[in-house]
């Protein structure tokens, strides 16, 4: 009985769906071997799009309806999607910065990264294949 209560209690605090680890990927020909958290923030928040290899990054965003997008910004910046949108509302209209390009999903992210040396995307770790390079583990130490 105690065991059953423990499992019941655990099920109440555990998330219904366990979020999968996200990683940031680039094209193997980008010349980038790894990125720091600060560099990933700079690329996706439009602060500095120049990669260590001097290429200008082309960051890709998943649709706002996806759990991965919320998870990515929450883990990367500690901010909610509403806060991220408020941030862009302040910058983009004046032309001071442009937000990442929206793709339809992780499949398109992978295709664009495989096809474009400048593309930078976040995907679930299980989606990674040999034609892309992992340069940052989101939420990692």
């Amino acid at each position, binding site marked *: 009985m105690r065991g059953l209560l423990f499992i019941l209690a655990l099920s109440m605090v555990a998330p219904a769906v366990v979020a999968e680890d996200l990683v940031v990927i680039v094209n193997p020909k980008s010349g980038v071997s790894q990125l720091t958290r*600060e560099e990933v*923030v*700079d690329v996706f928040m439009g*602060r*500095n*799009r*120049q990669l260590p290899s001097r290429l*200008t990054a082309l960051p890709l*965003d998943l*649709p*706002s309806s996806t759990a991965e997008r919320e998870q990515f910004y929450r883990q990367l910046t*500690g901010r*909610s*999607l*509403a*806060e*991220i*949108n*408020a*941030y*862009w*509302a*302040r*910058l*983009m*209209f*004046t*032309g*001071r*910065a*442009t*937000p990442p*390009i*929206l*793709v*339809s999903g992780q499949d398109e992210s992978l295709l664009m990264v495989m096809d474009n040396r400048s593309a930078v995307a976040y995907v679930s770790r299980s989606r990674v294949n040999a034609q892309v390079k992992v340069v940052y583990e989101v939420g990692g130490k």
Partner: protein
Amino acid sequence: MKNKINAVVLACSVGLCSADVFAVEEGGLRLSGSGFLTVGLGKMLGGDRATVVDFNCPCFTSDYAQTGVYDGRGGVQWRPDTRLGLQGRAELADSGLSFTAQAVARGANGGQGDVQWAYGSYLLNDSTSIQLGRKRLPMFYYSDTQDVGFALPWTHLPPQLYGWEAVNYNGVNLLHRSTWGQWGATLNVLAGREHLRDSGYWKIYNGQHSRTDVNWDNIVGADLTLVRDWFETRFVYIQSNTVRSNPTGVWNGVTYTPSPDPYLNGKVTRQRIYSAAFNVDYADWLMLSEFLYIARPGAAFEDTAQLVALGNRIAPNWQAMVTLSRYQGKAVTALGGDPLAQEGHVSRSLTVRRDLSPTSAIKVQFDSQKDRGGPRWIPRFGNARLLTLSYDRVF
């Protein structure tokens, strides 16, 4: 199909990826549109009762540039902070050329719309663009987005700092982004002019039926933003030749005969605007600070204003912030300025924000404003306490 994908991509790039954003692409020309809405409601809770100029006080000015004033007529007031903005962008694919415009209708102006932004932009390279047209004067940290309530942590900007006679200009600016060591840097250099008929700002001081025309010529300035992880700082310098006039006549059905301004009216003066912001966004804590100094060589007073705010993300999608802002005019006694006749006020506010969705939020704010004007300062608006509620949305 390709056009459909491009439309969605473009929609995201200009409009926060909401489903309502309009975007089409045809023949290499991309057209897109988005907008923002703030419904602001406010009620004066108390303060000094008096008729000041032609306002029935207690009074709280939430938007100096648009004569957005809550007054003591009682009941819930919606005009000062309510606005609807529509923005559109046309972009010639792969050319680096784009045109952007924004029109805003405000409750403070009886719902009338006006064009706040209309500028063309050409991308010189990946990090530099030149822009020409009508833009916001980048005097303050939130100048660019002062109408977009969703982007602000308050129901209205702290009026002690965010208030001056002109907020836009026509001209040219060069925008350059780069890195300085570990810092992301954005440098913006601008030049232009602004000829403003019937300034909303001066109606607060001269009466709602007054008319003041303001000319800022030879505007030259720059702003520099440096950001590194959780810290951001911004420095601004803008100068202009400034002249204002109060034409006698019948404005809004009332005959207006101005009393002459002994210091500035009809005289060309040079103003030099300095401002700096230092902001921290660390873990769940926010700290905003901003400082303004306006010097006018040849005039008898200067402006100083500051704000400091401390906020905390108290729970997912909830944020609380306390703000202290202060304005104080400084007499230049060598030029005849009277130290006892300077405007001054401070405001303390508490704001709670709740994000309803990735594109909408509600905020509640309590402001307490104290008059710190000198004993000979006129017009004395006095103390005021205001409660405001806003619903903000971008689409």
